[in-house]
């Protein structure tokens, strides 16, 4: 027989003024199971809690009902009081007689009192069905997987590794560095990108807690938070990294030239190559698409010139496995292809380039030695038109969102042009200048004043060729007139789009993604780093377009989250999760379909006691379940129950009013 204690709070005047608290206590005492009922001025105060603790011991209570404010307010306080008295904290029920009665029925004390009594009765009924619950602990593998070796992945890996947690960093291309390695200078301080990035890259390579796996892809991720198992494919590099010294003899002698991705195809690289001089690791790989030894079986020069004998044309892809506790996804972004802008003649006019191509040209280690040139005739341009929002904020041709970084990098480009080409002039067609960031507006102002760049507010409608000039036509909405700019070079600030592999990777990881392909955070404001899948975090442009400071901040936030998971040997979890009664489960697996977290798997159990025949039933993964109860409502056999909100608990509430 249950022995329930009821504690009704005055909450000063908050409850007592509008609810007859003693009457509620009297009403509670009439319930058969209630063995003790009392009121007090402030139940949440220390003396109030002491009353609860004393009563538990004195009256051998089996469950407690506190009638006070909302459980969202003080449930935790009172649970602690229970545990202090040696009682399971989940035997508490809170009747919300403040927010749900005294505060909302201030004109009718009688009705408010009756309602409060009802709420107490419901809580008592529910508490009778309460069960003892215990916090769940899940063992944890203390190793993090970071996918992507751009600045986001590098930062996350370093921060996690600095906390002495092993990190596996997987990068798709032969070197880490990502898009940032392609930049010349960075806004708003004009730091040299390479200068601030390469030390971090070297740190990654030399860090004792980081295992860097370049030229590799994640193939599979199984398991749940703290206990993932990752399958990683190391692509064949045809170069033995262990013996290779990175001397460079191979790629100097290689006869096959192909467009250089690092320089946006402006110049050529070899079929055996390191992406750029500061690459980490600084070991070449053979691009199997182009190497004639691999495609046609002819050549073999690199092997001949390699003193260490590191070239291995027979190398195969290798699949390795790692046990992982948490994952940081930092796959970065791609740039939008401006082909749909037919009215600009994209593809027809050689002197229309994208911003990243411009960036490579003005970069000191770039293909044109830091001077922008016209692709058509190699001349140095004087009049350069920058057009922003190419693809961004354009539902018709591109995407709806603002790419966030184009305003700033275009500002930077006007400065770089001003520095590199004497007597040059920039025209910037813009729609808005979005310079929200530390030092950004100041940067824009400085650029406008220093360079004298002409800002024209409007979208360009057409570009056509006149002689060797490109005529750029748009409205300057500020003066309400159509202007045409004679340009030597046109630079398109193309939109940031998610890495094209994002949807595939997201499916593989079990993370959701939006209509563009950005992976979705668990909550847009309060959980911007987590995904809905526990233990998988997002850094940088995987989640949305971001500049470098934001990316680095998010990467460090990821690291903090990962370290949080790894803080103990086990993870503690709220016990209010679903459990399956195997006896009743018929194995229809509808719960598996509706679970938003993929927390339900199946297992084989014997058909009957000692039977050899097996049948399939559902099994809840305690580490993953978040306790929403979707599975409970779709379980026709009532085989699943959600601790804290079981069917008996809720039905007791319903029938006890």
């Amino acid at each position: 027989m249950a022995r329930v204690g009821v504690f009704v709070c005055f909450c000063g005047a908050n409850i007592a003024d509008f609810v007859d608290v003693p009457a509620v206590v009297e009403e509670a005492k009439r319930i058969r199971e209630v063995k003790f009922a009392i009121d007090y001025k402030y139940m949440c105060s220390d003396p109030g809690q002491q009353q609860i603790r004393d009563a538990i011991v004195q009256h051998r209570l089996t469950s407690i009902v506190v009638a006070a404010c909302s459980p969202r307010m003080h449930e935790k306080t009172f649970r602690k009081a229970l545990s202090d008295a040696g009682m399971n904290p989940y035997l508490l029920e809170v009747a919300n007689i403040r927010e749900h009665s005294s505060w909302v029925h201030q004109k009718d004390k009688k009705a408010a009192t009756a309602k409060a009594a009802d709420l107490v009765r419901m809580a008592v009924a529910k508490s009778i069905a309460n069960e003892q619950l215990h916090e769940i602990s899940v063992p944890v593998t203390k190793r993090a997987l970071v996918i992507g070796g751009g600045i986001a992945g590098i930062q996350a890996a370093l921060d996690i590794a600095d906390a002495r947690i092993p990190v596996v960093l997987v990068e798709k291309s032969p070197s880490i560095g990502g898009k940032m390695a392609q930049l010349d200078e960075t806004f708003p301080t004009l730091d040299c990108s390479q200068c601030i990035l390469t030390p971090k890259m070297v740190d990654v390579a030399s860090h004792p807690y980081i295992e860097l796996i370049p030229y590799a892809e994640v193939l599979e991720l199984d398991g749940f938070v703290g206990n993932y198992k990752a399958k990683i494919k190391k692509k064949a590099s045809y170069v033995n990294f262990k013996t290779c010294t990175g001397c460079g003899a191979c790629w100097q002698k290689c006869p096959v030239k192909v467009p250089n991705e690092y320089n946006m195809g402006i110049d050529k690289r070899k079929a055996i190559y390191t992406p750029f001089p500061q690459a980490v690791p600084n070991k070449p790989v053979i691009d199997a698409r182009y190497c004639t030894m691999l495609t046609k079986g002819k050549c073999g020069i690199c092997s001949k010139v390699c003193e260490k004998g590191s070239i291995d044309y027979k190398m195969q892809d290798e699949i390795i496995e790692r046990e992982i506790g948490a994952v940081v996804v930092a796959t970065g972004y791609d740039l939008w292809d401006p082909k749909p802008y037919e009215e600009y003649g994209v593809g027809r006019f050689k002197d229309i380039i994208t911003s990243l191509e411009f960036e490579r040209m003005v970069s000191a280690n770039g293909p044109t030695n830091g001077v922008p040139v016209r692709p058509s005739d190699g001349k140095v341009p004087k009049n350069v038109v920058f057009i922003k929002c190419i693809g961004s904020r354009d539902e018709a041709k591109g995407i709806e969102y603002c790419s966030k970084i184009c305003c700033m990098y275009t500002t930077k480009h006007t400065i770089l042009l001003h520095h590199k080409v004497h007597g040059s002039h920039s025209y910037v067609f813009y729609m808005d200048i979005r310079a929200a960031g530390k030092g950004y507006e100041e940067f824009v102002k400085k650029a406008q004043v220093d360079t004298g760049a002409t800002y024209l507010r409007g979208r360009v409608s057409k570009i056509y060729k006149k002689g060797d000039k490109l005529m750029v036509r748009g409205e300057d909405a500020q003066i309400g007139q159509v202007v045409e700019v004679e340009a030597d070079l046109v630079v398109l600030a193309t939109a940031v789009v998610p890495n094209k592999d994002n949807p595939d990777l997201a499916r593989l990881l079990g993370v959701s993604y939006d209509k563009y392909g950005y992976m979705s955070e668990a909550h847009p404001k309060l959980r911007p780093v987590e995904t809905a899948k526990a233990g998988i975090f997002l850094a940088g442009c995987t989640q949305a377009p971001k500049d470098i400071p934001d990316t680095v901040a998010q990467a460090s936030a990821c690291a903090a989250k990962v370290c949080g998971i790894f803080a103990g040997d086990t993870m503690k979890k709220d016990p209010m999760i679903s459990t399956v009664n195997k006896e009743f489960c018929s194995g229809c697996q509808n719960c598996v379909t509706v679970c938003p977290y993929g927390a339900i798997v199946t297992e084989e159990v014997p058909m009957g006691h000692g039977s050899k025949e097996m049948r399939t039933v559902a099994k809840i993964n305690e580490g993953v379940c978040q306790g929403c109860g979707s599975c409970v409502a779709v379980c026709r056999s009532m085989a699943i129950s959600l601790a804290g909100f079981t069917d008996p608990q809720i039905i007791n509430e319903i029938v006890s009013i």
Partner: protein
Amino acid sequence: MITLGLQEKNTLLTDVNKRSGANVLECYQCGKCVSTCPVSNFMDFPPREIMQMVKLGLKEQVYLANSTWFCLTCSACSGRCPREIEIPAVMEAIRHLALEENYTNKSAKVKAIRKFHDIFLDMIRRYGRSYELRLMVEHNIRTRDLFKDVMLAPTALLKGKIPLLVKPVKSAKAIRRMFKMAEKLEQKHK
């Protein structure tokens, strides 16, 4: 100065949106239409400004603007509009609404355009087909610009460019019915 009041009273916006099937509120004033439009510099207000004026509910100015009459419906603007607004449809809707509510732009150019269309329709009403010589002559007479293009006419006639006679449509009844129906439907709008 323009005083702006409650937007609920902006019937212009609702009317234009309803009639055109476009949503003017989507316009974010990028001006791509203006620099696209071949005739924007002939207009009182180029399309971008018309959009904003519709949003502000400046009914009289919008209805009396010559912009809608100058619009050639070439669809270049809507093809390039990043928000995919059917600008020609908006222009047409404004023109029709202005016609229905008896707003008339009294400038000579608009009058000439209006006259041209009136004469053209008149001709179809009569013959079922268009008849270019008559169109030119009648337009010149009615716009009191008798000698316009007079230099062109002889060459054109000589070269057989412009026929002297027209072969009217046989079922004139059908054509008449169409015009009647159109008038009736327009009356309904009013």
